[in-house]
């Protein structure tokens, strides 16, 4: 029996840099319009790569905008995304960390799959390819996986618990869960959290090619003709607060982060298990005090690989029973691609949008449903419908599952 009375956690700000543009609103608008940002790979080595398509942040993103030169030089692309998304989220929240010692009571927890991959790739090229005798002196501070969290902490004077979380494709959800728990248990009143990834380097693309899980045309989750996942990039950052802290200052609440679930499959390093991911969904429901039939929408992990989409469908059926047939389930990866350690954060923007605007974003590129995928995947066109509560699924290589349960703003 628990003797700790947990505080409720709400979202009061969100920001995003995504293939659909700069800003959380650009991402949400694109998703509800069913617009896919997947296109031909833009890369200096595109000619010799087998990877043909990706979902990339557009060149209209200006990493230098309103960031001082002495900060910029410290940032890998991963941290650029995170810092810009954090600024948007914090501005929306209206929080002033210099007042009432809030900076000391604010945590920063940011997920990333690999951290400063672009820096790593550039420096490796210098050392091994060009036989340069020295690496750039800021290599370490750019590469380290906690760089994004630390840069946000420094930029805003946030002195609470600050760290990175790495769990491959579930990094963002795991990070958001850690941040929520810090607030629930009174270790922080507010938290800046989410995920960031920028790893479309030559080396990383070659590694993904060798795994043979990439689609060569587009991402078609749950379709019979799906050919794999499409890599993406970006960052989603959120401001979380305890409900009482948000209410006391009259903040606009976007949604409540009501429950969380985390499990490991403990079976295979890459092949997912329906039991593991369904257990994480059930945990998140129980933790949020939700019954299966309280949920209207699931933002699926929905990578578009052969293995994920069938297994996730089974997992949803295991967790929801007969109510599974009444759920709207969509994979927004069909539009923003798979941003790995940032994907859960981009998808949380979609879930907050769905709860707030009563619109479920679609699964794009839905040509013909796989008979083994027998749920309502909201094909191609967004659906206006009331969304009382929603789940957001993230499952990672390594067999790691992290699920968020969201409710409408109280």
């Amino acid at each position, binding site marked *: 029996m628990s003797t700790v009375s947990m505080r409720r956690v709400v979202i009061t700000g969100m920001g995003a840099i995504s293939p659909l543009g700069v800003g959380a609103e650009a991402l949400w608008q694109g998703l509800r319009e069913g617009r896919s940002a997947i296109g031909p790979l833009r890369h200096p080595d595109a000619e010799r790569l*087998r990877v043909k398509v990706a979902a990339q942040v557009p060149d209209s993103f200006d990493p230098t905008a309103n960031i001082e030169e002495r900060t910029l030089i410290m940032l890998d692309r991963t941290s650029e995304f995170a810092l810009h998304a954090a600024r948007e989220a914090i501005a929306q929240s209206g929080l002033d960390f210099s007042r009432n010692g809030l900076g000391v009571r604010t945590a920063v927890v940011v997920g990333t799959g690999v951290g400063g991959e672009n820096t790593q790739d550039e420096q490796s090229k210098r050392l091994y390819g060009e036989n340069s005798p020295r690496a750039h002196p800021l290599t370490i501070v750019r590469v380290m996986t906690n760089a994004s969290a630390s840069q946000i902490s420094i930029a805003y004077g946030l002195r609470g618990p600050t760290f990175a979380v790495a769990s491959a494709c579930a990094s963002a959800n795991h990070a958001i869960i850690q941040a929520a728990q810090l607030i629930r248990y009174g270790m922080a009143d507010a938290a800046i959290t989410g995920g960031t990834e920028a790893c479309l380097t030559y080396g990383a693309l070659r590694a993904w090619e*060798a*795994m*043979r899980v990439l689609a060569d045309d587009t991402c078609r989750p749950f379709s019979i*003709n*799906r050919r*794999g996942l499409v890599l993406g990039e970006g960052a989603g950052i959120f401001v979380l607060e305890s409900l009482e802290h948000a209410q006391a200052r009259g903040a606009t609440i976007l949604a409540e982060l009501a429950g969380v679930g985390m499990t490991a499959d403990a079976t*295979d390093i*890459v092949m997912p298990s329906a039991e593991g991911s369904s257990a994480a969904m059930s945990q998140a429901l129980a933790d949020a005090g939700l019954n299966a039939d309280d949920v209207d929408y699931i933002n699926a992990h929905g990578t578009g690989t052969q293995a994920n989409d069938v297994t996730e469908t089974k997992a949803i059926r295991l967790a929801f029973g007969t109510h599974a047939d009444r759920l709207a389930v969509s994979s927004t990866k069909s539009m923003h691609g798979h941003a790995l350690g940032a994907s859960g954060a981009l998808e949380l923007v979609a879930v907050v949008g769905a709860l707030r605007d009563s619109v479920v974003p679609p699964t794009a590129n839905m040509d013909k449903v796989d008979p083994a995928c027998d749920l309502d995947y909201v094909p191609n066109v967004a659906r206006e419908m009331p969304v009382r509560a929603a789940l957001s699924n993230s499952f990672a290589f390594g067999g790691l599952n992290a699920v968020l349960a969201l409710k409408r703003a109280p």
Partner: protein
Amino acid sequence: MTDTTQQQVFDIIAKQAKIDVAIIKPESTLKDLGIASLEAIELIFDIEEHFNITFPDQQGANFDTDTTQSLVDAVQKALDEKAAAGEGSK
């Protein structure tokens, strides 16, 4: 090269699966031979390295259920294409 393509491919499979090469039949699938998931991808890599070829991305690639004969055919096809491309550039 004295070994046939099939012998070479079977030798690589036997080494990867740690099985006697004699039990590999053309109609065996990788799954039959106990090669699944990531091991199958690793095997593909070993074959590509051995022959210095690159397999095209398959539609909905599922090497686990491919027969060893289909792998041998794919290797032979890639070798033939490589040879043709080599002649063409001369």
